[in-house]
């Protein structure tokens, strides 16, 4: 291990305004989650960019593997019938 280990890494999610999703904005190092929240506030919301912040230990996130992206997402490609535009409805039929 490095003689001066880094503080753990936290991923930062910010809600820009009420009604919007929290969105990933970056990461900070912090000794614990409470400090990560304070750092996130200083680093990512200096100009009113947020009304709410989530912090998550980076090591707690399981991400999909880009090499497997085809296998994971490809099956959705040929299922056009999942979209409403797949269906031809006679224009006499209203409100559908």
């Amino acid at each position: 291990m490095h003689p001066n280990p880094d503080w753990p890494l936290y991923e930062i999610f910010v809600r820009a305004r009420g009604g919007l999703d929290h969105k990933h904005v970056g990461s900070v190092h912090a000794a614990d989650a409470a400090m990560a929240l304070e750092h996130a506030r200083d680093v990512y919301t200096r100009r009113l960019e947020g009304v709410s912040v989530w912090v998550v230990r980076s090591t707690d996130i399981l991400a999909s593997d880009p090499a497997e992206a085809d296998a994971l997402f490809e099956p959705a490609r040929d299922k056009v019938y999942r979209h409403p535009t797949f269906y031809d409805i006679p224009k006499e039929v209203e409100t559908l």
Partner: protein
Amino acid sequence: MYTQGLNELAARPLAAMQEDPALLRRFEARIDAEEKIEPKDWMPDAYRQTLIRQISQHAHSEIVGMLPEGNWITRAPSLLRKSILIAKVQDEGGHGAYLYSATETLGISRAELIEQLLSGAAKYSSIFNYPTLTWADVGAIGWLVDGAAIMNQIPLCRCSYGPYSRAMIRICKEESFHQRQGYDLMLKLARGSAAQRAIAQDALNRWWWPSLMMFGPPDTASPHTALSVRWKIKRFTNDELRQKFVDFTVPQARFLGLEIPDPALRWDAERGQHVVGEIDWSEFQDVVRGNGPCNRDRLQARRDAHESGRWVREAALAHAAKHARAAAA
């Protein structure tokens, strides 16, 4: 630019030829299609190493760049100017933080990056090795140094590496305030007393040439630019960006009633561009090699800050560990 040290480091395009040809082809096809490369995607080692160097140099420049202006926080002439300057220096710290995070996505730790800076192994922009002698220097830095930085950073928002591109978008949004507060400060001095005009002119005299050098060596002496452009890490060459900066800045100086310290400066009507006199590249090389007016001071200040903060970092970790144990019990 903030990453000008790259010009002497990354001249090894042949490494790209040793990669798996099929993977390399696929990677370059994605670059050509303007797709972004993300941290877990396959990338050539030369791309990864070039980015680590470039983004970390950029991060180091932001952090060291806090020092010349920080020098004036306690002596700002009014509470408003002091608040503005604190906000600006805090932004530089924030920019350093975004950029270190982006670098870490390439598989290097923050501790290693800091160590490279403190040991002198890593470079940062030559511009921060010049002293801030008067209050007007704070204005000249915002106007010229941040102005030059913006010139370089706007195209970096479209860099092919996703985390760098996103960090640059965030930085560019904040950088415009830096340049405008600097110009505003210069304007107040330029319209002030004779003594105020004199320090404004003196600051321009001292910061003009180093600002032009920020863009790095001329294209003829910048061999790796081709690969960086092909992989869309870089979109314009050093000389292209420098020219753009000159063309933007000369009229701004004229508006201030200040004189650019270059007797050879002229307008070339045919090219529609300003032509500057000879840049003294030996001065640039000297500063990059560590012999600028403040190189030693800057590194020492960073080392001192790192050492005096050590107990705080350790205490915070001990505190977190104690509370984690208490919560588990």
